[in-house]
């Protein structure tokens, strides 16, 4: 989320687009209703294939709307909204139209503190783009009057796109007195984007976007989405009415939130307008999920809703700590803090250059930074260096020897989750056969798509380890003869301490309420025991190169650690875990008997007090401090995770630079060891300020306790602005296909934007910008998808639309960014996925959730209360389809897709008493069907919906949706296309 749950109260329009919070995030629905039935009198618009519980709350008398669209058509609908707005805003609302243009033409304020700052070609100094300097700006030595009034303040809509459409137009920018740009590196910025005088310039990003969405007229979009043209216009009008451009606080001048100074309108007045977009799996679980989200970002940026209370694009995440586990990078292409894995053959310096921060490599003749000097590093770079020290050594390792520790990072990515099961079954060669798996708190034997392939993989593992609270479907999965499965009992959430990060980026602390029950243990104890056992078995010998037992008292004689000054003495467990986190399995004190006195926030207290705590409460705080202390902590190595730095110390990122934003809590008690423990809710955020409903002292929010991201030149730039780089602006046109060039290299807080990996399969005639193409600026083979274009799901019911718009496919590029090949977004190796076709499978299948059960169900399907409330899965079918198939409400039906038969055990193919007529579980999804009344259709015609919570273990059992769902994925996120595939229905 760019904003957070409580901030939804500030919205004047809630646009639930591919999300069903009434069912899946009930606390969110409460905040939506707070906005609807309080001073905001907010409207609710729901766009979804289903008449969800959220959609049912829409009240037409209040201006609420529900629009039903076909699964997998989000980009078409969003582009349709943009197109309607571009074409009609002037006649619909002249004031809004004028404000929209004025806003996009706006410039940063004159004050130096708001000016944008870039690294110039001298490399050693940051140059602030204040008015005095910009007054003499030149592009390639020619006067650049477009910059005289200031740098664009909000987004890149005024930047110029080059002739081939693959990048901005670029020139060498010189500013200030240094007109001799050819020789003087000071205030010289090679490859800087050329900025137009205003967004009416035909080359501007703004006009390119206008041209890109031109084909998405209401008739075309209505045909793709299955909605009416009036629906599109009505939603677009609402977006205009509830944009920044219609808000009482709109001004073309600078807006200073009361964070800084001055009086501004509070969002808690009826005339303050902002639209929040709430999205979830309805946007992400598609083979073009990334493009769906990017389109939402574009829509909100165009309408000025980013960086505003009550605005933003807000992902309603699915699991209590999925934000945190993602932040921490438990992904095949990620390490903590949204850094990628160091690449094969990549040097430390080159890798560091790919992170936020100043350049450490010389580029275009500039002066390189010394990457061993911490003060030379940007935030993400400093965090990575600290992490390298802590993970593979200690804080005493000299930074001049960081290359040696860097050698210990595994180089290159792992394998994305869908493919891992194919690698378990066969690998793509003997060198990458996955033969063992550790599955900690996850249930892939329910949650992964195309279970037939998943289960072949799990069966073939030589060794499988499962850690969980219950015997899950994964723990009990069919295994090959002789292969061991270990199952380790883990405690519940109330029995273990630690922080969790919610969807709004708030870190909150979980207290250890009691010791783990019976023989179950805390994850932290189990993980430390696991690390100890791995060390004993020689897992870390590549660091020490000396056996575990031999290193107990003597220095390493070989290996990386022995080459350091001074050498690190093992054993590895002691160095990496025992000394840092304070417990070793051989200690006489049991883990749960560890104790210490530390800052806690007891019930009813108004400030933290010192309290005696035990077990995981002791260890979790030590780990938290390693992660979150200041990046330049000089007493030891600094915080390892740059985005969380600041929770662990009052001083924030840098001990010498206060970054304690949201000072509404000034003077209040504020924890120093773990701000996540903070429980001061009296500081709601003053009603008359933009802090309203921010609760700045409840928990801690990354980055820097900034509760609303993307402030867009409205507050003085600080590190939180990295999320609007390059140049601290929102980018509509974000990708550079040339990996080692681009504006980002020249921003103080630079970041190289990853080129999206997907392109539409339909290539327009001719290269470059082809205005006649439906994929203008999105599909030429040499280009990445600049702006999102509609593509059909891998299994589509509309062959006519596939011919015009294509599917999404994956593109591979060489180092220069040139396209070298394309692949489908599904497995084509051994045991390939073969998409079904409309002729065989004439219905669209989408997977859904209910409030009583949770995800793959291993928790809730073991609780009798949940099982009693929702005992078995069901099928949702449209009444018209039911009539056509002769199916009545309550009938048993079987849903079948092109996926294979996942259940081959004797149990699965034997008649089951829970099913009618001696049927068995194997092949398909068997359940009773809900048809509903003509006026009350859950799903549209041609669509079938099934819940995905069920499986064959636990108190409540039933058909697995993922036997049916297609294992196709989004090329950027690798999220499966759970929301759209083809199926057929049979009456049992």
């Amino acid at each position, binding site marked *: 989320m760019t904003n957070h749950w409580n901030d939804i109260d500030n919205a004047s329009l809630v646009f639930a687009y591919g999300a069903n919070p009434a069912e899946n995030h009930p606390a969110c629905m*409460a905040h939506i209703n707070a906005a609807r039935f309080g001073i905001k009198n907010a409207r609710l618009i729901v766009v979804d294939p289903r008449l969800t519980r959220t959609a049912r709350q829409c009240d037409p008398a209040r201006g609420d709307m529900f629009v039903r669209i076909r699964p997998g058509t989000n980009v078409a609908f969003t582009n349709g909204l943009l197109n309607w707005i571009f074409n009609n805003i002037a006649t619909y609302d002249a004031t809004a139209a004028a404000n929209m243009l004025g806003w996009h033409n706006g410039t940063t304020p004159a004050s130096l503190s708001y000016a944008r700052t870039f690294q110039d070609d001298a490399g050693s100094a940051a140059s602030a783009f204040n008015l005095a300097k910009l007054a003499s700006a030149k592009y390639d030595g020619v006067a650049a009057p477009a910059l005289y009034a200031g740098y664009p303040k909000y987004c890149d809509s005024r930047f110029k796109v080059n002739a081939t459409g693959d990048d901005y137009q670029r020139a060498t920018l010189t500013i200030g007195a240094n007109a001799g740009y050819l020789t003087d590196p000071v205030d010289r910025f090679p490859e800087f984007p050329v900025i137009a005088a205003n967004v009416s310039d035909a080359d501007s990003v703004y006009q390119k976007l206008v041209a890109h969405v031109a084909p998405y007229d209401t008739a075309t979009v209505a045909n793709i989405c299955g909605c009416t043209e009036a629906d599109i216009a009505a939603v677009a009008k609402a977006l205009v009415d509830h944009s920044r451009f219609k808000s009482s606080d709109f001004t073309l001048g600078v807006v200073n939130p009361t964070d800084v100074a001055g009086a501004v309108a509070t969002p808690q007045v009826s005339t303050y307008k902002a639209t929040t977009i709430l999205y979830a799996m309805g946007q992400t679980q598609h083979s073009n999920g990334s493009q769906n989200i990017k389109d939402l970002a574009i829509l909100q940026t165009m309408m000025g809703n980013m960086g505003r209370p009550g605005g933003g694009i807000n992902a309603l995440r699915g699991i209590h700590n999925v934000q945190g586990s993602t932040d921490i990078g438990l992904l095949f292409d990620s390490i903590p803090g949204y850094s990628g894995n160091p690449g094969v053959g990549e040097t430390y310096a080159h890798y560091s250059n790919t992170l936020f921060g100043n350049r450490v490599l010389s580029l275009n003749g500039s002066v390189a930074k010394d990457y061993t000097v911490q003060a030379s590093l940007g935030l993400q770079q400093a965090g990575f260096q600290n992490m390298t020290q802590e993970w593979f050594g200690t804080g005493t390792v000299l930074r001049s020897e960081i290359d040696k520790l860097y050698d210990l990072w595994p180089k290159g990515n792992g394998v994305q*989750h869908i493919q891992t099961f194919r690698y378990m079954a066969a690998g793509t060669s003997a060198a990458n056969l996955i*033969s063992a798996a550790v599955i900690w708190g*996850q249930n892939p034997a329910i949650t992964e798509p195309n279970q037939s392939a998943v289960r072949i993989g799990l069966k073939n593992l030589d060794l499988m380890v499962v850690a969980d609270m219950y015997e899950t479907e994964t723990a009990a999965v069919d295994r090959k003869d002789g292969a061991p499965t270990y199952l380790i009992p883990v405690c519940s959430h109330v029995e273990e*301490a630690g922080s969790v990060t*919610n*969807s709004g980026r708030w870190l909150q602390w979980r207290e250890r309420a009691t010791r783990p*029950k019976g023989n179950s243990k805390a994850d932290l104890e189990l*993980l430390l025991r696991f690390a100890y056992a791995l060390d004993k078995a020689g897992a870390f010998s590549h660091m020490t190169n000396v056996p575990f037992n031999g290193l107990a008292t003597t220095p390493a004689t070989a290996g990386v650690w022995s080459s350091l000054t001074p050498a690190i003495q093992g054993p590895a467990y002691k160095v990496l875990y025992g000394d840092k986190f304070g417990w070793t399995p051989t200690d006489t004190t049991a883990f749960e008997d560890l104790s210490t006195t530390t800052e806690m926030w007891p019930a009813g207290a108004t400030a933290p007090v010192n309290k005696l705590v035990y077990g995981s409460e002791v260890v979790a705080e030590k780990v938290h401090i390693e992660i979150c202390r200041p990046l330049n902590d000089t007493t030891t190595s600094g915080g390892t995770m740059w985005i969380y730095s600041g929770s662990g110390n009052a001083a924030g990122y840098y001990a010498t630079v206060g970054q304690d934003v949201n000072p509404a809590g000034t003077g209040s008690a504020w924890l120093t060891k773990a701000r996540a423990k903070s429980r001061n809710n009296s500081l709601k955020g003053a009603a008359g300020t933009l802090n309203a409903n921010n609760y700045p002292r409840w928990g801690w929010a990354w980055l820097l306790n900034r509760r609303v991201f993307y402030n867009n030149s409205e507050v003085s730039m600080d590190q939180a602005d990295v999320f609007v780089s390059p140049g601290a602006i929102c980018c509509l046109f974000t990708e550079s296909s040339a990996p080692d060039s681009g504006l980002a290299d020249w921003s103080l807080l630079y970041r190289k934007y990853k080129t999206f990996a997907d392109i539409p399969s339909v290539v327009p005639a001719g290269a470059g910008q082809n205005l006649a193409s439906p994929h203008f600026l999105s599909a030429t083979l040499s280009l990445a998808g600049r702006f999102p274009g509609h593509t059909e799901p891998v299994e589509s019911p509309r062959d006519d639309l596939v011919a015009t718009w294509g599917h999404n496919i994956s593109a591979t590029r060489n180092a220069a960014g040139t396209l070298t090949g394309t692949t489908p977004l599904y497995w084509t190796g051994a045991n390939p996925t073969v998409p079904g076709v409309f002729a065989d499978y004439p219905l669209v299948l989408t997977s859904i959730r209910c409030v009583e059960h949770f995800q793959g169900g291993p928790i809730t399907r073991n609780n009798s209360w949940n099982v009693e409330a929702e005992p078995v899965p069901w099928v949702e079918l449209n009444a018209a389809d039911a009539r056509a198939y002769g199916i009545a409400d309550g009938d048993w039906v079987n849903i079948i897709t092109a996926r294979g038969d996942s259940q081959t055990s004797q149990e699965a193919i034997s008649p089951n008493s829970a099913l009618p007529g001696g049927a068995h579980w194997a092949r398909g999804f068997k359940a009773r069907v809900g048809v509903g009344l003509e006026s009350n259709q859950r799903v549209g015609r041609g669509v079938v919906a099934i819940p995905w919570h069920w499986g064959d273990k636990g108190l409540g059992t039933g058909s697995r949706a993922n036997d049916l769902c297609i294992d196709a994925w989004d090329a950027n996120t690798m999220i499966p296309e759970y929301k759209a595939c083809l199926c057929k229905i049979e009456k049992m």
Partner: protein
Amino acid sequence: MGQNDKDTGRFELSRRDFLKVGAAGAAAAGALNFAPAPALAEIKLKNGDVNVLRYHTTCPYCSASCGQVIAVGDVTGDVYDVYGDVDSPINNGGLCAKGAGAYQLVTNKRRLGAFAGTHPVNPVFAYDPAYDTTGVAYKRIGNGAWSKMALPTAMDEIATGLVAARLPVTPGSTALSNSRHVQFFGSSHMNNEQNYVYRRLIAEFGTSLTEHQARI
């Protein structure tokens, strides 16, 4: 709610309470407010508990992170209740049908190794005081039956097996620094610190084969 559930194994009373809360949740959707659960019934202390201690946590389900209060006996450490935290600005004391039932997640006799007595799924999963000191793990070969073993023994077997499967890794800039043979999954169900230790351990083990629920 629910204090009879643990001893009797029946859930009539607590179930009614639960359904009331569920109805309040449903009403919250209909009546358009997310009202706090009914006032907590007085807790009847048992088994020598003198006081009820109250701790804070967040709900283990969706990413709203609603505040929860855990009522715990001071002597036994038994959990008497898990209910909505009225101090939390996120939920103001309210919980949905799942969150309101979180008490049963904690006290569920189907949990592995947690509670003494007859385990409803498999006798091997009942709490066994013989493993108080060492901890316990369960193991099966192929599709055979689960058996109990001491946790350190299991950890050693697992570690030996994983190191053998991994094959040697060689520090440096080549692909040899990254083993392609052992996959790690999980978990959005763990706290940040636990995930951090896990991710650290995976990198030190010498692989980037890690995935979890974020892609699901």
